[in-house]
């Protein structure tokens, strides 16, 4: 064969691999399952397919003899998948926690241009105007369902490393319980308005020391007592909550940071937005809490996701070389076996398919192992990071089935690339020379 022919073949092969990986990543799960079914049908129904099955079975049944070399593929790929799934689960956990904090039934009002509550400031007059605006739901006695809130930050030592971190303290209005019905006391009792009492989110209690019911903490030099623990299942669990007026007095604040209101109906948002926008006394931005909290998580979770994919890609490249090594070694060890098959009439396609399938089977085992490791170690594991308002957000790793699927998909892609080149070599093995090899 001429050199040009060799080069052309190599180029075609590389382009083919690149295209198939791109397809693999882009294709939806349904298409992949369909492809898998087609492959299975081909294997079971056609003559070449059945031959491929037979050759594959020979390879697979001798795997235990090559345990050491095969485990390189499995463990190498398990490492890639575990790291990938763990980092994606971290990003997803943060995103889901913040997205779940907001909903379409409540709206948050901040000063115009403010990107978080800590950048915002609303005067008492403004807060009153917002609470009385049309579109705000009212309770049975005609009071608007809204809470004007003061947000401050306090330093507390973290349990994990005793270093101090910022914790959000939220002073809320009397209607806060009606605005956030998912907020419920799990231990102790509610704070009394007018007293220096705080309730602590379950997440904050877990991450910081000294937040047990009955203990006191210092806010701006004044002693506050912790009287209860609350759960919400969202980012509010990272906070301490007390009475807005009392928190404002402690910090000598004249106004509020934000107003959160319950909307009278889903359509009332536009009404509220129009009313606040046309009031010359107000310069505010109004968003549904869902839009607000979703935007808070976007930057960081995107960064974590990109970092995770970059790290996993580099690891995957390393794992591909490991898989190539193992499969080349397996081919050269079985050169006589393969040549014998060819000599008794098997075509080159079954040999090629068998080697690729064997590599992908090992990769699948590795992918599942890695996904299980990531799930067992990290699912539900609680961590915290610096979120909006310059304070800690407590959230959990969220190893969802979708992420496990992504991990397995990566594993199979690595197996495909690692198996294809050795498979081509096996299929093109010169039969006579290989038979003579010792």
């Amino acid at each position: 064969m001429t050199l040009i022919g060799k080069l052309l073949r190599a180029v075609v092969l590389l382009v083919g691999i690149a295209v198939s990986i791109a397809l693999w990543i882009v294709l939806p799960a349904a298409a992949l399952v369909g492809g898998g079914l087609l492959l299975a049908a081909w294997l079971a129904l056609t003559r070449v397919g059945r031959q491929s099955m037979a050759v594959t079975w020979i390879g697979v049944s001798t795997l235990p003899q090559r345990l050491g070399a095969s485990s390189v593929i499995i463990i190498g790929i398990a490492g890639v998948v575990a790291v990938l799934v763990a980092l994606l689960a971290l990003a997803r956990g943060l995103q889901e926690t913040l997205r779940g904090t907001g909903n379409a039934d409540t709206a948050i009002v901040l000063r115009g241009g403010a990107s978080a509550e800590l950048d915002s400031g609303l005067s008492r007059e403004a807060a009153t105007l917002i609470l009385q605006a049309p579109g705000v739901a009212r309770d049975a006695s005609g009071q608007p369902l809204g809470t004007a809130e003061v947000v401050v930050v306090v330093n507390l030592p973290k349990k994990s490393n005793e270093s101090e971190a910022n914790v959000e303290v939220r002073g809320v209005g009397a209607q806060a319980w009606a605005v956030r019905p998912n907020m419920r006391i799990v231990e102790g009792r509610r704070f009394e308005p007018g007293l220096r009492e705080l309730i602590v989110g379950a997440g904050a209690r877990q991450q910081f020391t000294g937040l047990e019911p009955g203990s006191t903490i210092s806010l701006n030099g004044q002693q506050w007592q912790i009287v209860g623990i609350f759960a919400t299942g969202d980012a509010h669990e990272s906070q301490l909550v007390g009475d807005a007026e009392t928190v404002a007095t402690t910090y000598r604040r004249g106004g509020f940071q934000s107003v959160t209101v319950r909307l009278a109906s889903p359509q009332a948002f536009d009404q509220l937005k129009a009313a606040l926008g046309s009031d010359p006394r107000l310069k505010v931005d109004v968003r549904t809490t869902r839009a607000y909290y979703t935007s808070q998580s976007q930057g960081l979770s995107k960064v974590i996701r990109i970092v995770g994919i970059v790290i996993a890609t580099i690891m995957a490249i390393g794992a591909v070389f490991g898989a190539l090594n193992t499969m080349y070694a397996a081919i050269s060890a079985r050169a006589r076996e393969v040549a014998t098959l060819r000599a008794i009439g098997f075509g080159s396609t079954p040999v090629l398919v068998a080697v690729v399938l064997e590599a992908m089977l090992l990769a699948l085992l590795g992918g599942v192992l890695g996904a299980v490791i990531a799930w067992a170690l990290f699912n539900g594991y609680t961590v915290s990071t610096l979120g909006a308002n310059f304070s800690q957000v407590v959230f959990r790793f969220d190893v969802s089935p979708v992420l496990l699927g992504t991990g397995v998909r990566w594993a199979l892609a690595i197996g495909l690339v690692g198996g294809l080149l050795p498979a081509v070599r096996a299929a093109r093995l010169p039969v006579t020379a290989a038979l003579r090899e010792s």
Partner: protein
Amino acid sequence: MKYLHLVWAALMRRKSRTVLTILSVLAAFLLYGLLDAVRVAFNSGGTIAGVDRVVVSSKYSIIQSLPESLVARVAATPGVRKVTWANWFGGYYQQPRNQLINFAIGADYFDVYPDYGVTPAMADALARTRTGVLVGKTLADRFGWKVGDKLPVMGSIFPDKATGETTWIFDIVGIYEAPDAASRALEQQVLLNWKYFDEANAYGSGQVGWLVVQVSDPQRSAAVAAAIDALSANSDHETKTQTEQEFNLSFARQMGDIGLIVTAIIGAVFFTLMLLTGNTMAQAVRERIPELATLKTLGFTDRSVLALVFLESLLLILIGGVLGMALAAALLPVVSAASGGMLLLPPISAASWAIGIALMIAIGAIVGVLPALRAMRLRIVDALAGR
């Protein structure tokens, strides 16, 4: 060393296997180089910290300010050479995702911070122009700002006293370049004229966010810090004084335990790597048993055969590892540039190189020891007979 060509011949025996193994070692150490830079970037808090600087901030939290009157009292504390102060301003440029690191800075700020590379002319221009700001070169390049441009800053914490708006228009009067590569992170900042900020913000004057104190004797900085905190003890603005490094680290730590995450990933990578190259070495020795026996027949001692195989393993890892770290060193500036200045990764330090090479030698040794022992214990007769 005289056997180096022999080791080389062994490595070249199966070129494709050697190349594939080196490439996977390369990938592992590329990752090590990149992640270690991330770890260093976070642990240094983004700037080089002066040992003679301590930072005085509110004991309760970062959002609470201190009275400006504290500056004079701190300046009078024994052991203090110079005091300056600053207040966080915040805000963004054009879009909320372009958050700015900007603060108003007090008198003598650049005497305490020579690291910025601000010339006296620039400092003077800032002092003379009420609405002036100094911006770092990295940030100016990112947004294409020039001296003389107007810089609108939106969404600051502070409204303008006159208009009630939170949009402020500043004039760029200077673009500074940090002279030292390690303090390049300072070029991300926007520095405001204190007098203008103090007069024009609606939340009142005389409030500073934090004080930066230069101590005369870094050895005594702990005692000076205690004396400064004693000034405000039992007042409504108690302070916490810490070294600049602690102050910066406290921010980085709040992002999460970056060090732990990096160590965990590196651990997973190296565990996989060891398994992979260990397998390769075992394979390489297994295939060469007759050759090794021949060497022994020719008079090579057990010990030199052991050394040959051991060296082969070390060389394999070292070639891949050094190439990987070199690639990481080449990629770091690219990553920093691609992040648009969001993530400034320092070049790989001598310490990281030393740790990296120590890791290569350790992994090479662990991987090489079993195959090398096997080669040493070969009995010539059995090996030649293929038993």
